[in-house]
């Protein structure tokens, strides 16, 4: 063998060793046909190679509460509170009754559903000028709201049975507003996009001797997803 040939042979060996030392590919290789690595559907050669791609997104749970008072327009556009006036134009006559409604809508994609609670101020439905003048809370679970006798104040929840199938009301009768948060509605499951809607009717009966004043109460409506 000539010197040139020997040199060429040596260079060829070095080149071969260098190629062998090079890293083979970068990153994970696709699964070769016949391989039993994860992602391959077949342990036998079938002419196909496969690899896996994970596609993922997350939709977080949300809870939405929307309250509308029947007299919201009376308090202007700058208020986040909602207003329900009792009586004609918010005026109640001695010996008379007055009522008004607030609509509550809850929307959630939480599969376990939700609960809605309501509580009032500790001062109750009382006069703004003289806080000692009060309407007593009506006895719980009263079927018919009284139209005579002592001054009382209470609420009742109702819903459209045909459309609000996901929501169960806690009580069908009149109840007094409590200081502590009290269950008024339960949604068993996630709602539709339109949400679950129900109505709270507030009513007051003024006795013949109830003092003249402006009477009000602030109630807090709380929505929570179920654990």
């Amino acid at each position, binding site marked *: 063998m000539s010197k040139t040939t020997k040199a060429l042979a040596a260079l060829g060996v070095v080149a071969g060793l260098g190629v062998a030392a090079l890293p083979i590919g970068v990153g994970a290789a696709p699964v070769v046909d016949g391989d039993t690595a994860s992602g391959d559907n077949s342990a036998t050669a079938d002419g196909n190679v496969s690899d896996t791609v994970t596609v993922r997104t997350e939709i977080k749970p949300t809870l939405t509460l929307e309250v509308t008072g029947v007299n919201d327009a009376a308090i202007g556009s700058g208020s986040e509170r909602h207003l329900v006036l009792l009586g004609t134009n918010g005026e109640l006559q001695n010996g008379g009754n007055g009522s008004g409604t*607030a609509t509550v809508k809850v929307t959630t994609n939480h599969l376990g559903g939700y609960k809605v609670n309501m509580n009032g101020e500790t001062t109750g439905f009382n006069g703004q000028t003289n806080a000692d003048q009060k309407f007593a809370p009506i006895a719980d679970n009263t079927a018919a709201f009284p139209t005579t006798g002592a001054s009382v104040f209470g609420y009742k929840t109702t819903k459209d049975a045909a459309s609000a199938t996901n929501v169960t009301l806690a009580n069908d009768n009149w109840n007094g507003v409590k200081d502590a948060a009290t269950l008024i509605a339960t949604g068993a499951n996630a709602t539709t996009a339109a949400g679950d809607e129900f109505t709270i009717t507030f009513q007051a009966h003024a006795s013949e001797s109830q003092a003249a004043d402006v009477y009000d109460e602030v109630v807090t409506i709380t929505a929570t997803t179920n654990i």
Partner: protein
Amino acid sequence: MKTHNCITKLMKVVRVAAVPALVFAAALALNMSPALAEDKKPDYRLQISPTQDNVGKIEPGETHTGSFNVQNTGNKAYQYTVSISPFSFKDDRYEQDFDTTSKYTVLTDWVTFANDEGSVEPGEQSEVKYTVKVPSDAPGGLQSAAIMVTMVNSDEMKSSGVQTVSRAAYPIYMNIGGDTEERGTVIENKIPTLIFNPPLVTSSVVKNAGNVYATATYEMKVYNVFGGKEVYSNAQEDNNGDFKPDSKVIFPETERYNEVEWTNAPKIGIFRVKQTVKIFNEVSEKEKIVFICPIWLILILVAIIAIIVYKIVSGIMKRRDDK
């Protein structure tokens, strides 16, 4: 002839005017749609996401940080305040209690907020960040609380009547490591024998007698009486391909009532129903044959049986008389 020509000319005018009229109407509809969609949204709508924080196990001395967003999906900006309340349950229907304090609600003293108030513009969100610093001497077991997000009114209210305030509660609950006890019982496991209409509903009551919160599982399987083929299971497949039944969190020293429902049960049939309820290491299995039959069909069957019996008895009586 003249009438025909008039009609023909009128038709030409209509055809010429129709195209631009349709284009105009379409443009008007497109312009109105966003406005209509805008009007459907209320002025004020409170939204939070996510809706609760199931922390899991945490050791005394550790710190947990979390956050959620207050989102405005209404038409107007609003302000809100953030506060902390105890959180527990009043009864086995898990009616929420935001007022009663106990050894399990000391968490209210450990929570601090980056900001305890904020404001959010329409279409935007505001992040509420909170930190829970667990004391090094915290007792083992459940701790729970609820972060209250309350919409506030910056204007003084002078109107009479009833004013409502909107609030969303965000429960936080965790198990503190240390002296813990895991003990539970399935007090009740019920399957009905006869139902007149679907759905088929099974019920159970689970008691957590320990001091940590746990997850109870509820599995319902329904089989055809004839053939034994499974026709329904409430277990859902998760991302790992495992089938998991319904589950509910049970707080310590409470009992929880739960129902499992086969909503699409047929209106008539005979099935073998099995309900398995688990908490900690306690397992309760119940299996029963269930009849689904409308009341009117039962009445018809009873009437047919009654007629048959009457005929048989009448026949016997008549033969006796003839003898």
